[in-house]
């Protein structure tokens, strides 16, 4: 029982990080959407596994919310924000091979930096905390190195999913009421980004974000 629990947990948490790295690798919006949906689902599975393990109804409910929001609603919204299958990252500021090397370095960094918290939490879930931190750092890399609006949205999501993963592993999730508030905020932020991305496209046409140069000192 216990080993099934820890291997499921490790598998799901590992999937979250792998999806983050795959985001660096893909350039087309369509395949990226699949990755985002997979990551959301994996995150929901982490919460579900923990919830079943400790027998916490609140956490199981949180997991259901997480699956619905991050596994389904957000990928659908991003799909609508994307400008069709043609929208792809052609010239990232850091190219794909270099991004992958950088992500490896970030993962090592995450494991070093999060060691203190990991030992403080202890057990299987504690050992996985660095995975969440690594997801967060890869999210930052996507944010600063990708120039398409859609990819920046995904970068934000990676940051958010990384933190959510840490929250689940450290504390078995924040209290349900707050979790609902947090999920709602994330969902709304994605909706707002989607609207903005559409406005950006209708105003500027097909653009990379670093071409925005209206405002400067």
């Amino acid at each position, binding site marked *: 029982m216990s080993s099934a629990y820890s291997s499921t947990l490790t598998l799901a948490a590992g999937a979250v990080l792998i999806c983050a790295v795959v985001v660096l690798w893909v350039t087309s919006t369509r395949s990226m959407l699949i990755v985002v949906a997979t990551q959301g689902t994996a995150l929901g599975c982490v919460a579900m596994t923990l919830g079943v393990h400790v027998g916490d109804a609140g956490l199981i409910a949180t997991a259901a919310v997480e699956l619905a929001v991050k596994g389904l609603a957000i990928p659908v919204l991003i799909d609508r924000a994307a400008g069709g299958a043609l929208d792809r990252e052609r010239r990232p500021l850091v190219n794909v091979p270099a991004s992958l090397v950088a992500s490896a370095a970030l993962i090592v960094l995450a494991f070093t930096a999060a060691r203190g*918290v990991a030992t403080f939490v202890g057990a299987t879930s504690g050992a996985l905390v660095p995975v969440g931190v690594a997801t967060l750092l890869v999210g930052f890399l996507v944010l600063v190195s990708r120039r398409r609006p859609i990819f920046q949205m995904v970068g934000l999501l990676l940051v958010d999913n990384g933190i959510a993963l840490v929250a689940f592993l*450290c504390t078995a999730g924040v209290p349900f009421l707050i979790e609902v508030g947090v999920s*709602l905020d994330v969902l709304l932020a994605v909706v707002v980004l989607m609207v903005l991305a559409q406005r950006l496209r209708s105003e500027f046409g097909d653009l990379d974000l670093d071409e925005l140069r209206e405002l400067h000192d």
Partner: protein
Amino acid sequence: MVLDMILALPLLGGAGFVAWRNQAAGWIAVAVNGVALALGVWVAIRAVGNAPLSGAEGLLRADALSAFMVVVIGTIALLASWIGVRTMAVEVAGGRCTPRRATTYGVLVQAFVAAMLLAVLAANVGVLWVAVEATTIITVFLVGHRRTRGALEASWKYLVICSVGIALAFFGTVLVYLCALHAGGHSASALDWTSLMARARHLDPSVLRLGFALIVLGYGTKVGLVPLHSWLPDAHSQAPAPVSALMSGVLLTVAFYAILRFKAVTDAALGPGFSRTLLVVVALASLAVAASLLLTQRDYKRMLAYHSIEHMGLIALGAAAGIPLAIAGVLLHIFGHGLAKSVLFLTSGEIMAAEGTSRIDGVHALLARRPTLGGVFGIGLVALLGLPPFSLFSSELLMARAEFQAGLGWAAVVALVAMVVIFVAVVGHARHMLLGAPSTPETLAPPPAWVATPLVMGLIACGLIGIFAWPLSGLLEAAAHVVTP
């Protein structure tokens, strides 16, 4: 009960915009914001020397600090919604905004005010986080209200940078929650601020240190502190004037309120040394950035925005000193800065509507050509630069005194140097805008009295607080003691 009402009133005003799609709805919003302010004042009077009020089954809690923030938010919301009536009337009349978008604007502003009130009234720091994140989402559309290219760019930057910041603050909150659970907290109440304070001595120091650093970085993004400040000048210069007034006047300090709450927990657990070092570093960096960018500023709304970064730096430095005298100074500065900055942003909106440009070199001889607007703008700058008799002078003096007492005299001197640079820069810009003889004799209509009155009243209030601290001193003292040992 009264706390629930304070939260519900602005939302009621928002509903008014949907029900009556005309100017009357704007005045109804002003009225409900006024009532909310009156209730806030009542709560503040009651909060001094009494047990904290609570509401909504323990979700809301108002001690002296929360009550003080409610009064600040209420005051600025009253000012901003009043001028908002004018702003929208001008925009709709000028064909720059459809009545439908004016309705959306009204609803969003009221929701924005309600979210800020929730942030300062929340008993639970998790709810506080949700409310601060909600302010970001609501204000994105307000920043992008004008739908120009610049407004779009500003709102995208604002949302992405602030979402990252606020995500880090959530990370910090999770780590604090982790400490609290390990210290024996019950999961439902562990994030209540009072229970965090009660358990502070048992919180794990190394995890808490990491958590607080993330909270300063995360909420610091919304405060406009370096290093994640770059959204601020863009968002504040592109938003409609009343929104800039609310964002600069209160939203920044609402985020700082969150840092103050966590600082109290951290200081009780680790002693004041850690939070002091962190805050001194971000404060001095913010002051340096503000000073260097103000020197070369060419846009007066951006000038005001960088001025906010300076004042947030001063507030952070005051908080770093940490003794009750310093916190009282910080709170007084929050109020004074809120009043002066919102009056200036509201006036700058009028100037921009009248002159058609936000460039400093596009505006000249304002005092001779438009005495009312020029006068208010000039006096507002005098207040903002920290000259007597305005309250920013007294609060800066208070904070500096406290910094010397707390052994941060060297930082106070560095801050003073930055302030002198900023003073020279702003006076130079202001001289260009305000003084001089008009090139062509022209007679320009002054703004109607109902527009000028609230602006002048705001400045008078800022002056009165500076001269007679009496209506506030009891409240300030009580509020400072909430977050100091």
